[in-house]
């Protein structure tokens, strides 16, 4: 069984092809292709919906062609077409869904609309083999602490205002860091050279976290701090990372304690960050636990995770009828009925 996965909820456009060989138990999973093209706005700017949608429309057909060539797949080989239904940015999501629908109708294939967050979780599980971890899903658009219970990915805690990646990305604009390959990556590299820790607002509310306060504080004070020579840009990046990551480690630990789990799976673009992985590892080791993370092929938004989550649903008999293949900016992780797990 082969699934085509199309992802475009933010500035990353991803196309993936995955094969599930159903002759073994469990099925043998092979990644046939996983390619991505990212829209990078100029330094100091963020990506806007209209430009992002236009980027996706300009590149998606080429990406689909390349993926099929790399996987040596023709339309008749494809069992199902999966696409991101949400959450994310409206225009970009719809541009990608439009292609999915067109291909499905031309090739006479079923469609599966996938929840972006569930895509990250399922790819993380597949790649790392983590059995029943607490999942920390952290990206530019989402920050959630998730645990699986009775057919749903339950949100134990989340960011109340902006995602941790959004906080980092917007601070990168203040420093005029390049957006290529990603603002968060450039903050991570610069932070490695930081030595001085600035005391920043730390906001954890029970199981939830809040980043708008620390962002406002550092945005407001950075120019004066840098001008005074007291702190370098590297020190500020270092301080911001230490603070926001500590908040994430605290709430993840709280979830682990609550459900008695000794595994943490970190997914989402911010999950690529080595410092976050290191801090999480220190906490998990203290609890006799283990951290699972993937590399940038799977952490950062991609098409293969959509194909994976989609094919798992498809195998339970789930499809999305054409009239329901609209996209939505808000799509809670726990709205999905996880039929494919016990």
């Amino acid at each position: 069984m082969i699934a085509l996965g199309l992802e475009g909820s933010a500035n990353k456009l991803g196309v993936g092809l995955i094969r599930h060989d159903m002759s073994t138990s469990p099925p043998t999973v092979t990644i046939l292709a996983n390619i991505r093209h990212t829209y990078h706005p100029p330094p100091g700017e963020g990506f806007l919906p209209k430009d992002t949608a236009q980027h996706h429309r300009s590149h998606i057909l080429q990406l689909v062609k390349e993926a099929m060539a790399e996987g040596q797949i023709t339309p008749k080989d494809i069992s199902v077409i999966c696409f991101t239904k949400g959450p994310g940015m409206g225009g970009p999501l719809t541009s990608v869904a439009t292609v999915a629908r067109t291909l499905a109708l031309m090739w006479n294939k079923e469609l599966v609309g996938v929840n972006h967050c569930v895509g990250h979780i399922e790819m993380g599980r597949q790649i790392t083999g983590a059995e029943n971890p607490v999942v920390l899903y952290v990206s530019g658009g989402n920050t959630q602490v998730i645990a699986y219970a009775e057919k749903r990915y339950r949100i134990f805690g989340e960011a109340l205002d902006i995602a941790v990646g959004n906080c980092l990305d917007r601070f990168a604009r203040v420093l005029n860091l390049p957006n290529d390959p990603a603002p968060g990556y450039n903050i991570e590299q610069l932070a490695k050279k930081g030595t001085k820790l600035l005391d920043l607002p730390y906001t954890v509310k029970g199981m939830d976290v809040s980043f708008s306060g620390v962002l406002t504080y550092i945005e407001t004070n950075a120019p004066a701090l840098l001008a005074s020579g007291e702190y370098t840009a590297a020190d500020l990046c270092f301080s911001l990372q230490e603070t926001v990551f500590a908040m994430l480690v605290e709430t993840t630990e709280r979830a682990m304690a609550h459900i008695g789990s000794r595994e943490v799976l970190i997914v989402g673009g911010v999950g690529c960050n080595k410092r976050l992985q290191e801090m999480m590892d220190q906490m998990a080791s203290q609890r006799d636990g283990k951290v699972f993370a993937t590399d940038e092929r799977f952490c950062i938004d991609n098409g293969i995770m959509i194909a994976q989550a989609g094919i798992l649903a498809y195998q339970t008999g789930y499809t999305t009828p054409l009239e329901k293949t609209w996209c939505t900016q808000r799509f809670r992780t726990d709205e999905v009925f996880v039929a494919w797990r016990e």
Partner: protein
Amino acid sequence: MATAALHERLTLQIPLPSPRLAKIAADVLDVDKDLKPEVSRRLISTQDNMLILDFQTSTLKLLRTVVNSSLEMVQMVVSTMASFDTESEEP
């Protein structure tokens, strides 16, 4: 609440290579419903190989917006068909 009269109108007739492709285009586009039907409506239909988009809005600005975004999606559908239609390849 008083409903605005949808004075501004525009009809686009877009020829596709075949009635089959016109029907596919119509079905794909019609999934996305009007965001604010009280001020902007789009009716999609086909006639043989013609894709017909009927726009009715309360203001010219809304008309420009909905026509522009619709054409962007039509362009996406048409390019996808041009690149990937398999039926035309069958002998």
